[in-house]
């Protein structure tokens, strides 16, 4: 027995717990809590000619909340995130359902296959989309080749941003719904049919509510990052497609107004948090079909 293992055996239960959890706690503290705390602190400071000035004030928040353009950006971001997440859910459901029902032994492969574009990195993927949606991109070239007029306004529009984000997050949502369906007992549908439900009715009465949690998780996994999206709208969104995350990003680079950026970050954090909270209220674990939820009384 190694001395390390002998030492481990001498530890009490609580000491062992400490040894196992300490690295995680340390990691989270160092790379999550500290940055988050500093953002919060900086958001109450002021920046002037690329210098942080440490006088405490609320001006950044007043700016973020009253400046019409920021409000527009935020509204646009929320709307974009909503459209993106709903589209993702709507697309992911049939994909996941098909894979589960007809994927056979290739199920896992098919789901992993969906994530293949991830291997190329975000920038390359966005640029590839530019190649498809651009003014002389694949789509328009195809249309012109067929003698049809090209889409004037496809690239550098809000639609392009939505398409880009859906493309980006679809694999997450599909995986979430896939995993949910993997644990779903499809024989329940036999029972529903015997007891009077047609196919559609059985879906809405049984399949949908029992996979609601997975769907909501998929939704949240898309909504939160879409809300803060900055790279995709910057490449695809065009001049009038500025989103909140993009505006926030520029505070830290182009304009050098870090404290305003920090305040925007805090606001974004709260909007995302509020959304997650609202979403969590939509889940009734007792009605999720999770065994163990609720328990015996």
């Amino acid at each position, binding site marked *: 027995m190694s001395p390390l293992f002998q030492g481990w055996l001498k530890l009490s239960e609580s000491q062992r717990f400490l040894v196992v959890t300490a690295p995680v706690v340390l990691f989270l503290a160092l790379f999550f809590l500290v940055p988050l705390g500093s953002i919060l602190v900086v958001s109450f400071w002021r920046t002037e000619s690329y210098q942080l000035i440490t006088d405490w004030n609320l001006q950044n928040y007043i700016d973020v909340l009253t400046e019409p353009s920021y409000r527009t950006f935020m509204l646009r971001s929320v709307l974009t995130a909503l459209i993106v997440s709903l589209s993702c859910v709507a697309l992911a459901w049939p994909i996941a359902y098909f894979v589960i029902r007809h994927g056979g032994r290739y199920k896992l492969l098919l789901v992993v296959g969906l994530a293949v574009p991830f291997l190329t990195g975000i920038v390359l993927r966005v640029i590839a989309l530019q190649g498809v949606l651009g003014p002389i991109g694949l789509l328009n070239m195809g249309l012109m080749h067929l003698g049809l007029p090209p889409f004037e306004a496809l690239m550098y529009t809000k639609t392009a941003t939505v398409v880009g984000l859906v493309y980006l997050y679809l694999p997450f949502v599909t995986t979430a719904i896939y995993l949910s369906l993997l644990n779903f007992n499809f024989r329940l549908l036999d029972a529903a049919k015997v007891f009077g*439900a047609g196919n559609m009715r059985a879906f809405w009465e049984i399949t949908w509510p*029992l996979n609601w949690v997975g769907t909501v998780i998929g939704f949240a996994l898309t909504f939160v990052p879409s809300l803060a999206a900055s790279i995709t709208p910057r490449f695809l969104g065009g001049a009038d497609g500025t989103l909140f995350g993009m505006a926030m990003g520029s505070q830290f680079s182009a304009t050098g107004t870090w404290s305003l950026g920090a305040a925007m970050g805090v606001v974004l954090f709260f909007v995302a948090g509020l959304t997650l909270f609202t979403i969590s209220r939509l889940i009734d674990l007792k009605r999720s079909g999770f065994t163990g939820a*609720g328990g015996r*009384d």
Partner: protein
Amino acid sequence: MYLQIKDVSKTFGTFTALSGVDLSIEKNEFVSLLGPSGSGKSTLLRLIAGLEQPTTGQVLIDGQDVTALPPYQRGIAMVFQDFLLFPHMTVRENLLFPLRMLRMNRDDAEERIDWCCRILSLTALKDRFPNQLSGGQQQRVALGRGLVCRPKVLLLDEPLANLDRELRRDMEIEIRSYQIQLGIPFVYVTHNQEEALSMSDKIAVVNKGGIEDFAEKSAVYDRPKTRFIAQFVGRSNVFTGPVEAATEGKAIQWHGQRIALGQALNDSNASSASAYIKIEDTLIEAANANPSGKIAGTLRDVIFRGQYAEYLVTVDGGQEVVASSIDSATRVKPGDPVLLSWDTAKLDVFPDEVAA
């Protein structure tokens, strides 16, 4: 005939699950489909339910051809082996589900649910979710969901397989009593012959996609029509060997023993055959009795089963024969020499198929 299955076949790809099945069930009958796993009995039930479509043939319920109808237009209900209660609904909501699908009005529905809860003692559990119930309680809810819409036929797919022994016995009695109360046919799929024998009026023995016999349960048990039934229903000793002429009728030469067959095989010229005798028809006594016509052996072990015991006897020749009897009635100990006998008329004899 209330429920009729006419010449039904079902193939899945190249696999034939059922071929040429005919079955007619009366309105107040409790029928078991008894067979080993993979025999096609569950497929047959799913065909009656409408969860599968027959490749050929017809299903008629109450005179109506329902072959092309979806499950919910057939007026059937089903109880599943793993219950398949809707986990996101309470007991009450589970019971309400079939009524909701029928668009029954609220008051009538509540009345039905109350009736159902009363006969199944579920009233106290109405607001629980399935995962808060024990296996037996879930079983009762599954049964209730089957009965609540007053179906024309109730189909039960091994509904007791997941319950423990004691509960199973109670449920057997309950299920039988509901069937009598409601006066509708219950079609009960099981691989457990005790269940089939204790509950049913009639038993259809299913094997390899066909029905071997469909008859009163006592007939199936006492007079097996085929070799398969003789093997599958009840527990029997089997004697297989060449057939020879004996002083009276014929006999099987079995490992140096001569098994007299009485009147059996008189009209057959089979050269070899198998004779089955139920273990409870195999009588055992101490060796000091008159040995004529009996088989001698040595008691190897006694397995006590509660109300009766099984006697494992090694006969002279090395083979093993089992006899069962009430324990106290037979005063023999392991190692004792014993004699085995039976009523020749109780033997079920099947000529062996001649190997081509």
